């Protein structure tokens, strides 16, 4: 009977360890300097590695949303609002989520494998033994780089989603570019852009902390590295869905307070 609940206990204790790791990182960050070179090298690596896939994903998310909305809205003769609604739905909800999933599978898995390999080949022990701090040397440059690049990549993906939506709007739905773009500013408000960007930032942090933690705490040889990679992808996706819910709720509350104060 208890066996059914075991996974839930595991999730809770793993979450605890991730949070603890996050604070450990912040502590090292406060006390020690992070090499700019190492950080930029990582930012460059992550961005180059993933920009094509993110761009592609962003483009198609926008395209899919436009196609979906067209089918719903055609019957109401409301195609004029297609651009506004499709863009709003994409950048507030579906876009960040799907692009973050992509990054979990790509950046997250890669980083977890890289740190995991360093762990099981004892390179992390060696760094400590040679008088350096692996959190400072290996983990923080990656963590910061992943947050910055993922945030940038999510933004890039969202921009391309507008472009994808526009293109499909024209060739699938027969809505020309001016008309598609005209209602974007009326429907997509500044708060919803901000909430979309806030979401992207939260996803980037979640992504970065989970993959660095999993990789860093790998045990059990080559098999363990494989396990870490799978776990990173799965945990990140679950955590991002939960973070999505939480940020939507927060953004909603913030918006209400904002509207009431006016």
């Amino acid at each position: 009977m208890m066996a059914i609940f075991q996974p839930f206990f595991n999730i809770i204790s793993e979450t605890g360890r991730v949070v603890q790791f996050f604070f450990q990182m912040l502590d090292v960050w406060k006390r020690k300097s992070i090499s700019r070179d190492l950080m930029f090298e990582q930012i460059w690596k992550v961005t180059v590695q993933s920009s094509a896939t993110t761009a592609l994903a962003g483009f198609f998310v926008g395209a899919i949303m436009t196609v979906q909305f067209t089918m719903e809205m055609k019957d109401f003769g409301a195609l004029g609002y297609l651009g506004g609604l499709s863009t709003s739905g994409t950048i507030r909800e579906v876009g960040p989520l799907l692009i973050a999933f992509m990054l979990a599978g790509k950046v997250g898995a890669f980083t977890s494998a890289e740190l995991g390999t360093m762990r099981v080949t004892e390179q992390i022990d060696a760094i400590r033994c040679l008088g350096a701090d692996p959190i400072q040397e290996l983990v923080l440059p990656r963590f910061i780089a992943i947050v910055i690049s993922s945030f940038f990549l999510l933004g890039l993906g969202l921009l391309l989603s507008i472009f994808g939506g526009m293109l499909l709007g024209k060739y699938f739905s027969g809505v020309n570019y001016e008309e598609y773009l005209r209602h974007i500013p009326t429907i997509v408000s500044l708060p919803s852009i901000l909430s979309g960007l806030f979401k992207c930032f939260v996803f980037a942090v979640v992504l970065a902390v989970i993959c660095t933690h999993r990789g860093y705490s790998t045990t059990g040889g080559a098999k363990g590295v494989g396990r870490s990679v799978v776990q990173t992808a799965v945990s990140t996706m679950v955590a991002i869905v939960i973070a999505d819910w939480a940020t939507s709720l927060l953004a909603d509350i913030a918006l209400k307070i904002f509207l009431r104060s006016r």
Partner: protein
Amino acid sequence: MALAAINLSDVKVIFEGSTILENVNLTVQDGDSVAIIGPSGQGKSVLLKIMAGLVLPTEGKVLVRGENLSEISGARRQKVVNKIGMLFQKNALFDSLTCGDNIAFPLREVTDLDEQQIQKVVAEFLEAVGISHAKNLFPDEISGGMQKRLGIARALALNPDLIFYDDPTAGLDPITSRKIIDLILRLRAQNSATVVAVTNDMNRAYQMASRIWMVVDRQVVDAGSVEQTKQHQDLRIQQFITGAIRGPLTAPDSGAIND
């Protein structure tokens, strides 16, 4: 009485619910040369990592030159750790750095040497272990024996007085492994450091050790000098050093060796 190089008292290590080592009480004196033997998977590497402060004991105390590595931090810990050199079982070379930079890494992290001086020290160490030509190659571009040599050079770069070798001859052919042991003995003669080495090659153990420990059944048995070890009463030690197939290690209820 002088401070012991290493002192373990009532050390117990538990990993993910299973006890790896318990009741470990050992002392290493300066100038000792200890060989650790024992079936694989019994905790020899863990024991070395405990002594190097890389794994913290679940219970008990580990003192390196009187300092408890799990209680000190910052500059004080750094001072103790910098005097420890370690060759890891899988070498743990940094695969993104060249051989030269692998040796330069601790020098850059810990010392105030300028780049020119660092390059000079690197060249000396590469020379000492006989791989000068590999300076600009990456670790995965050189042979297993050369990787060991590089690992040894990196472990010695900060001139430690306490050196741990984790299975330095594993996976090497007999001639290369002989050369590596000769190298270790030659380096030891030069800097008179205290050495603790894991090895399952009994000839090498006899050749280099003044004392022998055996890790078995979650315990570490101090078998004494080479002569004492050869005549030790413990049947597990006798079976291990003679390589007999029948004995307590392979008994169905022992579980120490069951392949």
